[in-house]
């Protein structure tokens, strides 16, 4: 279902006219209200009025995660605190957390975008949404929550953790839509199995999963295990939270970006040059309606490409490919670029493999060594050592063939790889560089 038929299917020309008008207003506003942007524009010798077309956006300097950290906590806010009604923050696992704020209109915009996203995934008024995204400073939980209410669905704010209770709620409350990170969902599927339940007995029809990159093969695994249709959703707190982009259930081929609120660009991460549609690079966002925390040309570090060809669902909004990985998650193994999601794709082609894996990178004698840890479940196990060794060799050969890198495959016992309540830890890099 399309939640906002007018805005989501608007002819591109009209949409671009709206984007330009909103962009100009936003640039004007940040120039006069946020000292950081004022200085940045001045240093680059640019005035907001110099931007006359959407193409001119490329003349404006980028904003990075480091800029947000340097202005911790409230330096990037464009309104007085009196007008801020909500504060969220990133986890800060890789440094100082980044703090973002919302006015009540921002909260409304966000709810609207999340309602659109849930509808795109197949949810509607009559649904009961089991929301297992974490509630708190993380935008996942509350983002889905407000969107679900906006849509008119019933939301169960179960949050993350306490997995056994989650299964009981699924059984007793009869939710029909599931929202969580994909790795947590697979963990819940295991817990359900251990408790003697099958997702087939639950009432779920679809799930909207995001907050971490996941592969096409992982989608098949989730759809098979949970007997649902699985949809990818994208967002980040710096831009607004979940709901920046979402797949449509009709195509499941790229995520439609809410272009009436955000302008996407793809750049070459090394040179900063803007790349044409179809080329893979780093995703950059400019918000054009946000009040409390406008963001200009923010480098997301997510790697993807854009596709403006029409979609079967009827939406005219540009599609971004499923995120391939992050520029900072990208492993360089003996000079070859590898994303964890690419290894995942290879693994998921092997019959019986569970989607629990971890990549460990070491440096021995100045050579990078990649070890892929794979858990051995009942479907993979054999009483013959020979077969298990053949399996290790097969996976290693497949990785070599598809990705061109040598990897050692190490079979490990079930649950040896730590399960996430939120985002999965896929890579352990022990190299001292």
């Amino acid at each position, binding site marked *: 279902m399309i939640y906002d038929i007018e805005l989501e299917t608007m002819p591109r020309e009209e949409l671009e006219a709206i984007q330009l008008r909103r962009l100009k207003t936003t640039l004007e506003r940040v120039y006069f209200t946020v000292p950081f942007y004022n200085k940045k524009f001045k240093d680059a010798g640019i005035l907001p009025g110099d931007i006359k077309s959407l193409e001119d956006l490329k003349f404006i300097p980028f904003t990075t995660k480091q800029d947000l950290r340097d202005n911790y906590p409230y330096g990037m806010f464009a309104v007085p605190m009196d007008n801020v009604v909500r504060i969220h923050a990133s986890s800060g696992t890789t440094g100082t957390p980044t703090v973002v704020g919302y006015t009540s209109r921002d909260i409304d915009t966000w709810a609207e975008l999340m309602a659109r996203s849930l509808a795109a995934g197949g949810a509607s008024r009559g649904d009961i949404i089991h929301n297992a995204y974490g509630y708190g400073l993380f935008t996942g939980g509350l983002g889905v929550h407000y969107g679900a209410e906006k849509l008119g669905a019933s939301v169960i704010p179960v949050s993350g953790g306490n997995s056994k209770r989650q299964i009981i709620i699924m059984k007793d409350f009869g939710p029909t839509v599931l929202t969580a990170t994909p790795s947590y969902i697979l963990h819940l599927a295991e817990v359900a199995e251990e408790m003697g339940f099958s997702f087939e007995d639950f009432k779920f029809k679809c799930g909207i999963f995001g907050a971490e990159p996941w592969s096409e093969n992982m989608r098949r695994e989730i759809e098979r295990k949970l007997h649902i249709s699985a949809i990818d959703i994208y967002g980040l707190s710096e831009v607004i939270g979940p709901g920046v982009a979402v797949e449509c259930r009709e195509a499941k081929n790229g995520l439609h970006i809410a272009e009436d609120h955000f302008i996407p660009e793809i750049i070459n991460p090394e040179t900063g040059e803007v790349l044409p549609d179809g080329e893979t690079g780093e995703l950059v966002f400019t918000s054009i309606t946000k009040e409390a925390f406008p963001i200009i040309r923010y480098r997301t570090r997510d790697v993807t490409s854009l596709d403006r060809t029409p979609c079967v669902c009827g939406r005219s909004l540009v599609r971004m490919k499923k995120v391939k990985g992050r520029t900072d998650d990208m492993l360089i193994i003996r000079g070859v670029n590898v994303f964890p999601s690419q290894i995942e794709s290879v693994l998921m082609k092997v019959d019986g493999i569970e989607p629990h894996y971890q990549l460990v990178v070491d440096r021995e004698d100045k050579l990078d060594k990649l070890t892929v840890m794979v858990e*051995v479940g009942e479907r993979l*196990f054999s009483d013959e050592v020979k077969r*298990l060794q053949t399996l290790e060799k097969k996976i290693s050969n497949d990785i070599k063939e598809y990705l061109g890198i040598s990897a050692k495959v190490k079979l490990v016992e079930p649950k040896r790889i730590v399960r996430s309540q939120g985002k999965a830890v896929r890579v352990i890099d022990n190299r001292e560089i």
Partner: protein
Amino acid sequence: MRVEQISVFLENEVGRLAEVTSVLAEAGVNIRALSLADTSDFGVLRLIVDDNKKAKEALTENGFTVGKTDVAAVEVPDKPGGLHKILDLLNKNNINVEYMYALVHQDANNAVIIFRLDNIDEAIDLLIQNGITVINGSKVHKL
């Protein structure tokens, strides 16, 4: 005439085997025979126990991956050439032995050996036709 064997996946780490025996001891399961095959990273432990169901449940509950396979328990005369006669027979009939190990058993005249064979039913028929005693499952678990 088949005997059910359970097998357990183990990482090659200090204490993993003891973890299995501790789980089985706590569940009151008696081990009749075992064999461990290993590589530098992992091992596969094969067990003949007195109660497969109880053993599998206890191990699975403790997070181990457990498999089940059918094997043959064959009586081997305790004298020179006893084992050779059996292997020779299997070999001549193109039946491959994946692995084998001995069962703990107090009987002065015969040893009992567990065979993992790639064509078990055909193999068992062949052994019986040639006058070799194949012990049935319920008896093996209680030996």
